[in-house]
């Protein structure tokens, strides 16, 4: 197990010059994910920021083969790759589907649930920037309550974020984990572990997004860390039903010293219109989820 960044696979699979924004949390997380999976990997992805990161024809900065598919189809696309490779006896390749929160929580949910129920042998990575960023920061069902988006411009989002991880957990997967690019070693280890497991593995990656969330590009790591410190994002893994906090969230669970969510929210422009009632609701929601996790870890 790598105890520091220098022990990670030194090879880079993303060359400099991607089309992602400066300070993009996705490019950081994706970089470590590919390092963990290494070259014998095929990626498939829908329309989203990652599709843009992968470049405009005829050049790509990514050295892992990739099949772009339509917005609703990501997990089915992976299932097709898996079936094709199986039919051709090329079973040592890791197949990873990657989609944004919109392509997962909203439009991609049917194909993902189907593939997971069938036990398709692949990793599904949802990178969650909490909105439709590629199309201009519209609301998704992953957008947190109180956020201004371009389709909730005045009143802010009125509903809480969909607890999608619970939906995936209900599929009784062999492996489910949450990761954050602010904690790259935790992220890397989880991908290394996921690679070795058979069946459908679901990894949820929170990716701070400077233009979509309204913070300075130098603050991506800090924002991701604050999300974890406040319990808005919880790092854990569920292996065959066994829940385990990991990394910083484990320490927070042991010590009970989470920061209040306001510390995280107040740093981001998207929450500028949040009222006190929404703030209290958000805190209560985070507390409730945290308690669920604590109970789960104790069980």
């Amino acid at each position, binding site marked *: 197990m790598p105890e520091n960044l220098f022990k990670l696979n030194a090879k880079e699979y993303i060359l400099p010059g991607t089309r992602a924004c400066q300070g993009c949390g996705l490019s950081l997380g994706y970089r470590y994910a590919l390092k963990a999976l290494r*070259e014998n990997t095929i990626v498939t992805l829908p329309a989203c920021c990652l599709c843009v990161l992968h470049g405009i024809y*005829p050049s*790509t900065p990514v050295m892992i083969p*990739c*099949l772009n598919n339509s917005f609703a189809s990501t997990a*089915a*696309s992976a299932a*097709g790759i898996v*079936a094709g490779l199986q*039919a051709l006896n090329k079973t040592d390749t890791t197949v990873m589907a990657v989609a944004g929160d919109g392509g997962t929580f909203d439009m991609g949910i049917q194909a993902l649930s189907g593939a997971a129920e069938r036990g398709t042998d692949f990793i599904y990575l949802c990178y969650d920037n909490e909105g439709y960023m590629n199309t201009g920061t519209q609301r998704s069902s992953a957008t947190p309550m109180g956020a201004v988006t371009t389709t909730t411009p005045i009143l802010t989002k009125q509903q809480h974020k969909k607890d999608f991880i619970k939906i995936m957990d209900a599929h009784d997967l062999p492996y489910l984990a949450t990761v954050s690019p602010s904690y790259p070693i935790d992220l890397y280890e989880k991908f290394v572990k996921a690679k070795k497991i058979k069946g459908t593995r679901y990894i949820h990656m929170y990716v701070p997004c400077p233009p979509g969330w309204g913070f300075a590009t130098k603050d991506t790591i800090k924002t991701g860390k604050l999300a974890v410190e406040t319990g808005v994002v919880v790092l854990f893994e569920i292996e065959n039903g066994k829940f385990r906090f990991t990394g910083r969230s484990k320490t927070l669970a042991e010590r009970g010293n989470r920061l209040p969510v306001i510390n995280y929210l107040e740093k981001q422009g998207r929450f500028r219109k949040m009222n006190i009632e929404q703030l209290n609701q958000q805190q209560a929601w985070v507390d409730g989820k945290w308690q669920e996790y604590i109970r789960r870890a104790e069980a």
Partner: protein
Amino acid sequence: MSNVQIITGNQAAALAAKLCSVEVVAAYPITPQSQLSEILSSYVESGELKAEYVRVEGEHSALTVCISASTVGARVFTATSANGLLYMHEQLHWAAGSRLPIVMCCVNRGVGAPWTIFNDQQDSLAQRDTGWIQLYCRNNQEIIDTVIQAYRIAESVYCPVMVCYDGFVLSHTMMPVDIPDAAGVRAFLPPYQPHTILSPDDPRNLNPVLFPGQRRDSEGVLRDGYMDMRYKLQAALEKASETIRAVNAAFAEAFGRDHGGMLWEYRTDDADLILAGMGSIASEATVAADRLREEGIKAGVVGIRSYRPFPKADVRNAFRNAKGIAIFEKSISYGYEGGLCSDLKAAFYGTAIKAPIHNYIAGLGGRDVKARELAAAAKNSLAGFEKGMVEPQTTWLNTTTG
């Protein structure tokens, strides 16, 4: 040596997929296709067919699985009907745009709302502009033979092929079918050679975002823009006419059955009146033509086999001596007329073919249409033509209108 069995259209299609040794099947049940996906399931579970069967949760995923499996180099098969085909619409474009030789059966059925499970061809006709080759079958023998031909066509021109046959009329009707022998099919159909394989051995980014203009790659080579790629798809479909004719001829040579390349003709040599259509209604029109001839009317039939690519040259030849034309269609381009009628008129434009044309919409949602009704309609058209009727209104057969 022939091996004639009495089977349904769906059994014929399933047998064809097995004979073609498809490697990945993904399908979702819908009437009247369901039996086909069930038969294939049993082939795969019993080990008769060595393939991966992905029992997807919907048709969008069925075609997606085929797209991705084909991209990594597997021969794939799917089938659907009606709303299932409509649900695939986005992926129909994706498959053709990716230039993948996917073969799909469309077991033709009317589309909702309101629901009908019965036959017409609105489902596949509505997918005309997706970049797929569309072949129509008139009987169960043609279904098995056309699916086999479809793989050879698709894998030659790198375009997907939709093999269309009428729901219930063919899918659930038993007919004698001569089953091609497996060795013969293997000889006729070489293994699938993908144009590009998605593999870690040669990492590529397939189907990425394109700019409108052409761009240079890292070696300075000018590469296609979006529109150049679209042109190549169009050129491939146009060129596919030759391939369809050649594959039909090669099949006839190997198996002794010629179903016509782009179209087939029946008693057209001296025909004054030509009935035209696609699929089983065209087959039924041959019975109507026989009746008309018994009454002294020189009638013949042209059955369109390949709707896309459209057989422009072939129809110009087939209709060159027609004095009147009656077109029977199981679909309608709402707000205008039957799509085949429009296409035939366009093909005749600027030629010596000036015959009057009467368009009939028939058999929607399984509305019964008998050979004698086709004959009566055609006879009626002829009477009108003789009275100087040049551009008759589209007639909805066996329907309360107005």
